[in-house]
């Protein structure tokens, strides 16, 4: 019954995505996006795609998050929506 483990992870992903898009503080949004990517990496590993999971964890959660933090630290932290 591994499929509903996957299903619940998908549910968490949707929640994380919505939070990342609705939070007003940029740093919080970026952090949520990293959580999102990490959940996605877990899901990928669960589905047997270890190579993709490794890359997603390093690139999606790591590098993209750091790049976004780097950019947000240069610009305004608050966001209109």
């Amino acid at each position, binding site marked *: 019954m591994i*499929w*509903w483990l*996957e*299903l619940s992870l*998908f*549910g968490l*992903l*949707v929640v994380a*995505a*919505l939070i*990342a*898009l609705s939070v007003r503080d*940029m740093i919080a*949004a*970026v952090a949520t*996006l990293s959580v*999102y*990517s990490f959940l*996605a990496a877990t*899901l*990928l590993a669960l*589905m*047997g*795609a*270890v*190579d*993709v999971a490794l*890359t*997603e964890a390093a*690139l*999606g959660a790591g*590098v*993209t998050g750091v*790049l*976004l933090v*780097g*950019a*947000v630290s*240069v*610009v*305004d932290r608050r*966001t*209109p*929506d």
Partner: protein
Amino acid sequence: MIDEVAARFPYWATAVLLVVGLYGMIGKRSLVKQVIGLSIFQSAIILFFISGSLLEGATLPILYGVHGGEHADPDDFVNPLPHVLMLTAIVVGVAITGVALSFLVSIYREFGTLDEREMLDEMRK
């Protein structure tokens, strides 16, 4: 009913994620939020491809016996081709995000804001 859900839910879930990401890209005023939406959108497609690579009773696509000359049965492994495609897609996604962020920083230096509406107002002046 439950079988139907078990067989189809990856497609439904990725459809929802896709739309959430798309909403971020076209419905948000803040350029940073647009980039975040882009990121979600792309990972939804990645999950779509990978969930299509699953195979009942299969395991990681690594042939442990290859140097010992053991013969491997393709049915023992999940389909590796989508994995390869998605490795490519992830890197493409990061490249686009990087370029988008550099645009964003450059725009901020020029306009002093990242709100699309404010920028349009300022340009009309």
